[in-house]
């Protein structure tokens, strides 16, 4: 009872944030006008702003946050690592390389782009885990993080190489995208991302109980009938798919996957089914809020979304890091 009230409250906050994201922007709109525009009535300019700019932008922010939140919750549990998240593990970086490579070779669209990202993300997580394991990093969560940061740095370099031969305009777009942005949201992107996020989220919820057991460690997982190697590989791949899809849609938005699961745990949620579900909701709210900040901080200009989430996430990371040692 208490927990359902809590979730209802959070859902309302997220909904209010989404409404605010539609109402506030370069042109402020009345709540009334927003509601009219949503149903297609009123001033045609307002209708156009709401329906083709702000609504898809808010929807994209919600989806990106949900995807990153769920991926972070799953990675933290399966890796038994309170610092794990797609961006810090280099998974997002790998996804970005995949996406930039696809674009550089002239490919794009709802299938090629996310799948190229996914290939990059899967490769990145395999390399990060392989490096961490080779250096005996199972015991210390920070070793995996170091491996992830190195993979991320390599990904950055790879992107720079790819961009070196691109036309200046493409470089500018790519840089903006690498800083994370939902500004260019369109319904097509929202459409395919919603499919990936729903699919990946459903798969993670299906495997949530295995994540509960994986979080106890390899030996205890084996004692409870879970093949830790196989099961965690599956979960890494799903988390990589989720992260890759968000990167393909909105670029590198860091730290959401780190902050969100900790927030949800602070509400007393422990089991991963509830944790992943809660992370979807809280993540959605967080990214919508971050995008609002990005738009309202310095109008009519905008801050990069990834910069806003990093400004929140880095201090948070440092606090978590301190707690570890």
């Amino acid at each position: 009872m208490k927990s359902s009230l809590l979730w209802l409250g959070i859902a309302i906050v997220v909904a209010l944030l989404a409404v605010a994201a539609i109402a506030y922007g370069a042109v402020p709109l009345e709540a009334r006008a927003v509601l009219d525009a949503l149903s297609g009535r009123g001033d045609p300019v307002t209708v156009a702003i709401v329906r083709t700019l702000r609504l898809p932008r808010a929807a994209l922010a919600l989806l990106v946050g949900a995807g990153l939140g769920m991926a972070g919750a799953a990675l933290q549990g399966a890796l038994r690592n309170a610092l794990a998240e797609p961006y810090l593990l280099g998974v997002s970086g790998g996804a970005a390389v995949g996406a930039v490579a696809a674009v550089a070779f002239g490919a794009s669209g709802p299938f090629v782009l996310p799948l190229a990202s996914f290939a990059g993300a899967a490769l990145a997580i395999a390399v990060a885990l392989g490096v961490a394991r080779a250096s005996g990093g199972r015991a210390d969560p920070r070793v995996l993080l170091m491996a992830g940061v190195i993979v991320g740095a390599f990904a950055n370099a790879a992107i720079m190489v790819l961009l070196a031969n691109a036309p200046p305009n493409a470089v500018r777009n790519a840089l903006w995208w690498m800083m994370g942005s939902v500004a260019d949201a369109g319904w097509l992107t929202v459409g395919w991302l919603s499919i990936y996020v729903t699919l990946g989220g459903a798969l993670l919820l299906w495997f949530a109980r295995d994540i509960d057991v994986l979080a106890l460690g390899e030996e205890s997982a084996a004692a409870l009938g879970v093949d830790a190697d196989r099961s965690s590989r599956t979960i890494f791949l799903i988390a990589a798919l989720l992260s890759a899809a968000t990167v393909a849609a909105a670029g590198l938005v860091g730290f959401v996957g780190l902050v969100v699961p900790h927030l949800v745990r602070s509400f007393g949620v422990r089991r991963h089914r509830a944790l992943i579900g809660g992370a979807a909701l809280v993540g959605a709210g967080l990214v919508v809020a971050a995008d609002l900040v990005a738009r309202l901080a310095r109008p009519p200009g905008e801050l990069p979304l990834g910069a806003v989430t990093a400004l929140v996430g880095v201090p948070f990371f440092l606090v978590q890091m301190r707690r570890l040692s």
Partner: protein
Amino acid sequence: MIIFEGAVIRYPRAAVTAVDSVSFGVPRGALTAVVGPNGSGKSTLIRALLRLTPLAGGAITIDGTALAQLDRRAFARRVAVVTQREALVFPLPVWEYVALGRHPHDNPWGAAPMRSDASIGAALDRAGIGALADRGTDALSGGEWQRVRVARALAQGGEALVLDEPTTFLDIAHEMAMFELFSRLAHDGMAVLLVSHHLNLVARFADTMVLLHRGRVAAAGTPAAVMRVDILEEVYEWPLLITRDPAVGAPALLPLRNRGLRSPTPIP
């Protein structure tokens, strides 16, 4: 009944065979203890039972079925293992933790909750920690945590319980309480396999002892048959004395001062 039949286990890149042709059985209704010096292969046997390390030869069977033929969940429904170490990165309430013992029975969307709740409650009671159900695993003493881990194993509901050094770090009262619990569970009909360093307690409580030495069985049988000066001095490479436990008459071991005559071989 768990049977190790000529089990051979080699770790990759290791010069020596960790476990070499080890055979013994763990019958129901009895407490079977595996003892031996550090590095004698005790925990390796447990890892093989959990299929974390492959068998290079021989077989392990559970009630006549080869381990390799059982799927992991079916194994976990029959045999519950409490591993040597377990530290939670994300603490859980004790009830939730013990509930994870039901994992091998759950379908992904949840089992019949009534039956599970009853099993969890019963497991907490049998382990004597009913009062801790709402506590967090990060707010437990070492002794409480070990009991909570045993409760999770009991919630698995199998007929066999395997414990790898469950009483290391426990004080006398908690250690005795654990041994009493294992002996009660065995005499209630479970097959209990206990890996321990505490020879004197094992000699008092176990029905059968299996003494491992460098991966081989050095002696096996009743405590009286295994707790012999010649055998134990050879295995532990230390002078000792076997006496009688004045309370129950079981054999008891006293290590003697070593007058510089011998020192244990380093663990490979």
